[in-house]
């Protein structure tokens, strides 16, 4: 930098550190303030972690000695959970595919149509799964039907979002070919778009099935049937040994389904 620098200088002058951008600083300040405010409103403190450790340990100890035979005693609930997930995923991804076609600029020729569909889908996705279960429990009573209906709505939202984003990115060649040969909207979607998105779509289907198995705890606790309702009952009776056994078994089931779907996915893609 400086012309006067002696020729023997070992290193050039260090360049000046660029000033951090005001946007970043502002963002960090806002984030820090929000964090402080959030922690304050929640009364957040990690002190119980040290103070109540012995209280918690009594319960955790029970969890560490799971009652294994209980897993088989609730066999029906396991079957129910898998069945709920299969029905809900199948219906959800089928309707989700339809909505995906409606929610993409590529397949929906009406600009307002696809905007309205997108808007509807983001409202659908903004409600947590638990809200759907509560609604359907109120409508059709406690049981697996409520769980199935809730998961279907939940699945439509996810399937449609993922698939419509894939549709947005398809190669336009086949679309032009279909248009040139006079294909209607449906034929175009079926023959020019569907073959392109099929591998991705199938992998989303598997992903949604996995999600549904994972969600089974939530579904059951809110009254939607399956293994979650068993957890709910055992939890309210303080039978933590039984809950622990179910949780470990659920973990294994999730892992197995994860492996299975990874295997299937490799065959599709």
């Amino acid at each position, binding site marked *: 930098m400086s012309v006067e620098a002696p020729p023997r200088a070992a290193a050039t002058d260090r360049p000046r550190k660029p000033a951090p951008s005001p946007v970043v600083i502002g963002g960090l300040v806002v984030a820090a303030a929000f964090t402080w405010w959030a922690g304050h409103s929640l009364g957040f403190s990690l002190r119980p972690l040290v103070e109540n450790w012995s209280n918690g340990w009594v*319960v955790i100890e029970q969890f560490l000695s799971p009652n294994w035979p209980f897993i088989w005693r609730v066999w029906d609930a396991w079957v129910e959970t898998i069945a709920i997930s299969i029905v809900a995923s199948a219906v959800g991804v089928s309707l989700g595919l339809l909505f995906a076609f409606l929610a993409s600029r590529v397949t929906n020729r009406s600009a307002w149509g696809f905007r309205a569909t997108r808007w509807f889908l983001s409202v659908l996705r903004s409600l947590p799964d638990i809200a759907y279960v509560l609604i359907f429990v109120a409508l059709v009573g406690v049981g697996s039907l409520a769980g199935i209906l809730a998961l279907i709505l939940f699945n439509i939202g996810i399937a449609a979002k993922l698939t419509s984003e894939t549709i947005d990115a398809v190669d336009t060649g086949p679309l032009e070919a279909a248009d040139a040969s006079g294909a209607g909207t449906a034929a175009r979607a079926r023959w020019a778009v569907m073959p392109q998105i099929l591998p991705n779509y199938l992998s989303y289907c598997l992903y949604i099935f996995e999600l549904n198995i994972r969600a089974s705890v939530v579904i059951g606790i809110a009254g939607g049937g399956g293994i979650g309702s068993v957890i709910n009952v055992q939890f309210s009776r303080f039978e933590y040994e039984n809950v622990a056994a179910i949780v470990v078994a659920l973990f294994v089931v999730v892992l197995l389904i994860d492996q299975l779907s990874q295997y299937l996915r490799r065959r599709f893609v």
Partner: protein
Amino acid sequence: MSAATNRTQPATASAVTTPRPSEPSKTKATLTWLALLVIFGGAVWLSNARWSEITGVFTDGWRYFQLMLDGVLENPFAEPWSGYWTLALEKMMESVYMAWVGTLIGAIVSIPFGFLAARNVSGRVTVQVTRGFLNLIRAVPELVFAIIIMLPIFGFGPVAGTVALGVGAVGTLGKLTAEALEGIDTGPVEAARAAGARKLAVLRWAYWSQVLPEVVAFWLYRFEINIRASAVLGIIGAGGIGQLLGQLFGRREWEQIGIALVVVIAVTLLVDALSGAIRHRIISGGAVKESTFKEDAVSAV
């Protein structure tokens, strides 16, 4: 799906156009569909659902919807409706706070795990062990963490839920951070080494600087997910909007339920839009393609 057998039949001399190639066999597809149909039928049977109750959706559904709409359309500034709106908003904000603090805890804890689980940073054994641990956390729903560990220690209330969200976030965020670290450009690493940087300095200035935008985007994405997850935690008494929803549904207060649902939808959409805009800005400022980000995020959730 299977490769088409492109065996054209020998053209007869009089044929003007080339004859249509014979259609590939459909047996496999038919069998697959049949199998899927059988599985679906079995599942419908085994799910123990009382399908006849489904009429309730159409009969009661419409009535309840009207009640909910009534609640939403009442003057929100008059008693008691203003109280309902305030309560729902307060509880929803509690959920947002839980999600924010929980995500922050998860983010901070996940950084060292991310480095330990990256193949180009740590040794093979460390990577295997850390990945196993992260997968374990990923497989357990937050709800289970809350039930097993957090409620006994923190008692009922939002703090238990917050910590549960934090623990749950470590699994995904750790994995995504590790994957981001594995995808970095090795140039800066070599440059830092050549300039005599120590291991820690290399990690900080060559690795971390490269993945920071992507990793912060993952944090925000997880925050969006955690807002929904925090609603679930409320149902077992861990605070937030879920607790209010559970109470309202228990008492069948449809007018208030309508108000609460509108608040949930509005706040979630708002936060999603805000967080999405920031993520977009961060990512397009960085060198990461949006497409890779999305796929990673999807596979990890």
